[in-house]
């Protein structure tokens, strides 16, 4: 009976953990491609950064 009651919260915890991890990776990707100011990255991503409305220079 207890197992049945615990099923829903366990699945929610699973979603929250997976979601947090995925969002951290997504945030990292957006920061590296859109915001890090290292010269090579900046030059390669330059046009996309401007067109996407990121602060660029």
């Amino acid at each position: 009976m207890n197992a049945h009651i615990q099923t829903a919260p366990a699945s929610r915890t699973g979603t929250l953990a997976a979601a947090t991890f995925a969002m951290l990776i997504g945030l990292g990707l957006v920061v590296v491609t859109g915001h890090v100011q290292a010269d090579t990255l900046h030059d390669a991503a330059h046009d996309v950064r401007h067109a996407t409305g990121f602060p660029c220079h």
Partner: protein
Amino acid sequence: MFTRMLASALFAGVAAGLIAALLQLWFVQPVLLHAELYETGALVHFGSASTVPAHQDVGGIDPLRDGLSVLFAMLVYSGYALILVPLMALAQDRGARIDARNGLIWGLCGFVAVHLAPGFTLAPEVPGVAAADVGARQIWWFATVLAAAAALWLIAFGRNWGTWAAAIVLLLAPHVIGAPEPDVLTGPVPTEIGALFAARAFGVGMAAWVMLGGFAGYFWSREMRAADAVPAE
């Protein structure tokens, strides 16, 4: 669960990123290259006394530069998808319905949070504009995106006036406080080009985000159907 999120997000992000890149290369890139002629001083603009023709040959496709734009657009939109899909999953856990049709609305909200909200005060910058310190602008940009995204979540899923009032405060606050501004306006690019650039950047961003939301909703609902078919995962 994480693998399903990753798969849905990467499919949606790459597809939307490709569409964003193609729209950008077609509609934004010629405006950007035109602006760069003024940024580099190849053309000089003297207000009402200018005799520079409005139409300039800005060149065609540059395989390396444009190829990098396609790659980075896919990476940026994959990053956005890796935030959007988990939010969809969390909303679904709380009873929201997620599919391709609803995804279009999620995408529109994503555009508002990530493009329109920060761009309302920190307009998409054509190359050459005067601007405040980039670090300060980035902090303001992230804070504004976070506030707008939280506000849209509260508007969509809030159930009382308290949450809606908080949403309004979150939407307005960054613009009432104001973004970092340059001390002097030194932009050499004609205002017509800057305005067209901002309008095109918004238009392409909206199209790409609506597609991203639709794809994310489609792929996530497909993953969920597959998960239901195999309960043991």
